């Protein structure tokens, strides 16, 4: 997969990353302003992972997501207005207000749901991969999960089965160095989650998760491998979340240093990519600014849409429990 991405692809990648960042910042503000109830886990800092992978997927390919799922849905093609409406708990949300941030989904574009259960996604992606192989449709199922989630039994069972059945699945570990407030060194005895891959009989690949093109290239190869029927890959992306575990400010727990955060923020995935695009003459700083402004306007309109959407009627409580 050494084909050079076209400028169009590069601009699309840029746009998707900015869409995630802008949405998430506004979601953080809206939660602080009381519009978003429940738990809000923001994806800021990790945009390159979702976008670098999703650039290779169609609406027919499936993904499973995590509690930190907005970025995955946006990268997969989720619409701001339906997403904000869901986060606000309104009827026009993707899940009619029944799911919220931790369960936001759009199955029409292959997004099988954010997930409140850590490690909930990998077995489901394995099953979707099974269906793809069964139907011989050439689709791929991708599961995103954290370093913390790689300690759940569910991940290990899914990895073994996907490799055993040679399923078209991609395991994407978003290693941001923490599970909640616990640093990786305190939750597993390894530093590279990809080390686990050979134990299941699949390749493990490590990339810089702040470099969207590195993710793009590695994910391209792994997706291609899966589409060709050669089985799953574990792709570990080293990344960092810029905000706290919950919301922007979190719960006041001390578990990482300001210096460490500042060090990672120097490698902001969007800033690094914009510098590269400017250098390559693909997108000037001014043009990039316009993209940010345009997306900010989209976000603003979506927030208005969500605010205007009504709360679900209490009578809807028992709808959709069964088909």
């Amino acid at each position, binding site marked *: 997969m050494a084909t050079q991405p076209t400028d169009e692809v590069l601009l699309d990648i840029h746009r998707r990353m900015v869409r995630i960042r802008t949405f998430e910042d506004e979601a953080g503000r809206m939660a602080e302003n009381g519009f978003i*109830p*429940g*738990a809000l886990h923001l994806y800021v800092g990790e945009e390159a992972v979702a976008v670098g992978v999703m650039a290779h997927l169609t609406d027919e390919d499936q993904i499973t997501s995590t509690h930190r799922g907005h970025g995955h849905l946006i990268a997969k093609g989720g619409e701001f207005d339906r997403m904000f409406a869901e986060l606000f*708990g*309104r009827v026009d949300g993707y*899940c009619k*207000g*029944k*799911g*919220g941030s*931790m*369960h936001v989904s759009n199955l029409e574009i292959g997004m099988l749901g954010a*997930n*409140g*259960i*850590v*490690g*909930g996604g990998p077995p489901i992606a394995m099953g979707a991969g099974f269906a793809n192989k069964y139907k011989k449709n050439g689709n791929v199922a991708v599961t995103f999960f954290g370093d*913390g*989630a790689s*300690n*759940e*039994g*569910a991940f290990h069972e899914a990895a073994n089965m996907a490799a055993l059945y040679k399923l078209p699945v991609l395991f994407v570990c978003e290693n941001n160095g923490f*599970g*909640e*407030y*616990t640093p990786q060194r*305190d*939750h*597993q005895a390894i530093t590279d989650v990809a080390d686990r891959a050979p134990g299941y009989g699949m390749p493990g690949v490590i990339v810089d998760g702040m470099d969207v093109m590195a993710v793009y290239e590695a994910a391209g190869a792994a997706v291609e491998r899966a589409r060709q029927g050669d089985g799953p890959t574990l792709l570990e992306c080293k990344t960092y979340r810029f905000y706290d575990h919950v919301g922007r400010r979190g*719960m006041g*727990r*001390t*578990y990482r240093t300001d210096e460490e955060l500042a060090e990672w923020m120097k490698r902001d995935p969007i800033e690094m990519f914009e510098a590269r695009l400017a250098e390559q003459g693909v997108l000037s700083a001014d043009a990039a600014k316009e993209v940010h402004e345009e997306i900010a306007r989209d976000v603003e309109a979506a927030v208005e849409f969500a605010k205007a959407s009504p*709360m*679900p*009627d*209490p009578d*809807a*409580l*028992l709808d959709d*429990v069964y088909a």
Partner: protein
Amino acid sequence: MAETENGKRELSYVLAVKEAVETILNEEPDAFVAGEDVAGAGSVFGIYRGLLDEFGPDRIVNTPISEEGIIGLGVGAAAAGLRPIVDIMFMDFLGECMDEVTNQMAKMRYMFGGRATLPITITTMCGARNSMAAQHSQCLESWICHIPGLKVVMPSTPHDAKGLLIAASRDDNPVFVVMNKASLALTGEVPEEAYTLPIGEANIVRPGTDFTIISYSRMVHESISAAETLAEQGVDTEVIDLRSLQPLDTDTLVASVEKTHNAMVVHEAVRFGGMGGEIAAQVQELAFDYLDAPVGRVGAPFSPVPFSPSLEQSFVPNADKIVASATELLGL
């Protein structure tokens, strides 16, 4: 922490739990705590906050996100002579570890002819509050009450939380201490000294002569306020806080029904298959002749817990709904 007017000490639910754990760790060298983010963060609910500094990482053990491993750690450590306190952050995550709970922890003693002793305390949080949605809100106590070999307590107040937690840790069986997230901010009188409440004894929190509400955990408070409303309507309502669901104190329930002739069970869990069915059946078996009407039941509707505040509100039982059901039951 605050002094009330009559000099009694008030503590929040969170601090009462912490104080209980402190007491346990001080009196029992083989006791330790293990769970996700219990150490540095003191649990996301704060119930273990500060204990790492006091007892160190050998006794306040941070675990990976591995619920099956956490319960397994408790089972194995108990079988090998320790007295573990293990934490499953949200009760919903019991889904990740039900084999260790059901097929190992609950049965080892019995399967091994009484030769294993498993003094394990499991702390966990139930309850729908603040739109935590379908996977972080459930009350799943009927899962664990159904399994022979387990004990289950669900303290409603800071006072009960401390007493039941210490009792759980001194018990030689696996005991689940299930707390409701929405009760954590409650404050109440908590004696400073170590004390226990007997597991399996209910508490009459509001005596009455005309009607019995049987409840537990957070719904006790809703039941008390429903009882106030019913009192205004001339129904002197007795509210019983079960405190312990397994074992169940049927003696107290029967004695109450012999007096009031009408009863209703109130819980936050989904009504269908909830503890209300079991409790109603037992009361009807034991006190049929005293009852004027079938035992009523209030519980959540048959749906997953919804996210949207408007739906969550209509899902969770409250004082108004309890009054409405009582009024219907009593034909008022």
